[in-house]
């Protein structure tokens, strides 16, 4: 028999209403309130403990609440963690999201909650955890709890979790390929989509265009005393590729000294070349400065237009490289940049 733990707010945990919203976290053996329903719906598992916390307490003392709940769970055996359903209750939705995310990170067990689409907790946490689509109010308890139990049963049995639409959870921003059961080839899907589009009928794109994510613009720098670093995704490396950076789908990067170098030597000199598989390498092998413009930057350093050049350049390969990997590599590189007080970066990409 597998074991699950459920998180409820003060109301569903039968502590009280709004007047008890400051209730500090507590843990109880067995099932309380809505936990009875969940327990009955689980196939080969039981709810061994129920955690209860007031919504306002979680809202205004998040760190303390999370710490104390994680403390309760320490040393307890459990295979899954549930929270809610939170319906359209905003503070409860936030609490379910916060605690599910924390439990998942600390204990590595699957976590499941449920919220109505207008609950702000959905957008805050849908990328981190399974949030099932739920109804707006507690009147939907008998619909939403079985959905939580259903996904929980699948997770506990190690069954394949299908896509967001099929399972009824909010998309987590993860896209994977599936094999269509009816094997409808892409050509037929394209024709059918085209006919709908021509006839102004509704159609569903298989690739909804995500919104562009931007970052705050970093301020302008004063060039005259700035230290500038060069980074490239064009795969310029020492000819022996000492860090074995992959030619595509790279997960590695390199940091190479350019101290005192006026320009990058080429492949024939036994100095630098490109290992990028996404373009014709001959020009960059003959003169790596066309991809990593050290020579030009040195000229500006000598003229005094910039203060100095950081003694190392950084390189990886940008073809087919996963965004998550690129972000991780960037964070690793940034540590070196910060340590050497680099003010600005010229990043060349191919």
């Amino acid at each position, binding site marked *: 028999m597998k074991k699950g733990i459920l998180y409820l707010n003060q109301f569903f945990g039968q502590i009280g209403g709004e007047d008890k919203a400051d209730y500090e976290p507590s843990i109880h053996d067995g099932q309380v309130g809505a936990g009875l329903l969940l327990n009955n719906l689980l196939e080969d598992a039981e709810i061994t403990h129920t955690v209860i916390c007031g919504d306002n307490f979680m809202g205004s003392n998040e760190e303390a609440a999370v710490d104390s709940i994680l403390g309760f769970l320490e040393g307890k055996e459990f295979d899954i963690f549930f929270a809610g359903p939170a319906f359209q209750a905003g503070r409860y939705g936030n609490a379910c999201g916060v605690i599910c995310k924390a439990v998942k990170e600390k204990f590595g067990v699957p976590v499941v909650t449920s919220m109505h689409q207008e609950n702000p907790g959905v957008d805050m946490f849908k990328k981190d955890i399974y949030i099932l689509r739920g109804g707006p109010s507690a009147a939907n308890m008998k619909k939403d709890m079985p959905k939580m139990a259903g996904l929980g049963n699948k997770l506990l049995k190690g069954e394949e979790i299908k896509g967001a639409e099929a399972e009824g959870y909010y998309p987590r921003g993860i896209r*994977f*390929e599936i094999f269509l059961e009816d094997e409808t*080839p892409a050509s037929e899907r394209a024709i059918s989509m085209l006919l709908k*589009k021509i006839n102004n009928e509704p159609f569903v794109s298989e690739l909804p265009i995500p919104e562009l994510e931007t970052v705050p613009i970093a301020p302008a720098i004063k060039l005259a005393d700035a230290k500038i670093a060069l980074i490239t995704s064009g795969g310029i490396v020492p000819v022996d590729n000492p860090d074995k950076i992959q030619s595509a789908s790279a997960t590695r990067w390199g940091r190479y000294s350019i101290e005192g170098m006026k320009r990058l030597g080429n492949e024939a000199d036994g100095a630098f070349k490109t290992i990028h598989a996404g373009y014709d390498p001959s020009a960059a092998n003959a003169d790596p400065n066309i991809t990593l413009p050290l020579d030009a930057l040195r000229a500006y350093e000598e003229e005094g237009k910039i203060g100095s050049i950081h003694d190392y350049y950084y390189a990886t390969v940008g073809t087919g490289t*996963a*965004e998550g990997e690129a972000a991780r590599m960037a964070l690793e590189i940034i540590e070196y940049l910060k340590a050497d007080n680099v003010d600005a970066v010229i990043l060349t990409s191919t």
Partner: protein
Amino acid sequence: MRLEIGNFHVHNVEFGKTSSYKDGTLTINKEEALAVVLEDEHITDADIVLTKPGDDVRIVPVKEAIEPRFRLNGGPAFPGVTGKIERVGSGKAVALKNCSVLAVGKHWGSFGDGLIDMSGEGAKYSIFSKLNNICLVADTDEEFERHQIQKKNHALRWAAHRLAEYLGSIVKDMTPDSSELFELEPITKRDEKVQGLPSVVFVMQPQSQIEESGFNDLVYGWDTNTMLPTYMHPNEVLDGAMIGGSYMCCSSKWSTYDFQNCPTIKSLYNEHGKTINFLGVIMSNLNVSLEQKERAAMFVQQIASNLGADAAIITEEGYGNSDADFIECIRLLEEAGIKTVGLTNECTGRDGLSQPLAALDISADAIVSCGNVSTLIELPPMGTVIGELESLMRDGLSGGWAGDEKLGPSVREDGSIIMENNSMFCGDSTLGQSPKMVIEF
């Protein structure tokens, strides 16, 4: 243009004294077939190995696939490759269906090569697992590229085309098991009923991003890197005018077989005269610099507009920076009021979290998504390997690697493998075969 393809449905392939075809069995005189292969002195070693669906067989490195064909009106089946330049797409041809000639490296692989499993879990990743494969396994004296990641694979690819034409010739005087007719009249000569239907063009963006010749897809033997978008009859595509290249990550690639059997062209033919007026194909390409991408997209917009297209289907043979060509074309077609549906695959990373296309635009509101190149695939050993398994990890195949901190090498001692979909042979079939879709999790 009117093209009649006489089909011979091959259920069994075997070697025998005389090359012949009878009741679904194709018999190959190996010596005669190899003589055709060895016409090129650069082929130093060659063998033909047969395999069929369900066999406990893994094939790698696969460089090209071709459906055996022969043109009955004279002229080469693959103009510019197996013979001089002659127009194809009309008249009569014969085809050996349900089979393909595969060009397989005896040892050496390259970036664009792929893998095919003939049975088991791996078989679902490539449509070529469902065909009777006639594998030309060969080595060449092309020393200049022996240890290059990118190889032109010229000798082997051309030999496979010669072999495909030779096999096609076996049935040239026979009555086909069935036949297919592809006929599309000139645009202004169609009857009123057809003219009244919404007009649709098919825009193809074959892979053409290497500036040095010898790697890209060919049109009548001409490197597609050096062309501007042009209007073609769909029959030319089905009849050997287009030849697969030797550069792109394999699951994104279109082999010659894929061109010859292009499912989207066939689907458009099926709808022609019923729901749409199929205008034909705009053969575009994929480029390297922004200026080239913009110029090609501009030509596509201009041709589509002046043909009077109301709608378009567009497909790209590639991902990464070629997504910019694809998206720019869609943007310009939509700008011209042409309702467009795009076919592509995605690169969302092994964790599925990456931006699906390198370039995106809100005008691309109707996309059919054929696969994720970065899907991680782990497969058990197979009893027999045709080619050389080590090539997957040794030779820079786009979906294989020599070492990885977490995953280890792509090829393990027991013959089991771990790889990215990137190297599944023509697995994402963006010409329309793909039964895959990318969905949100």
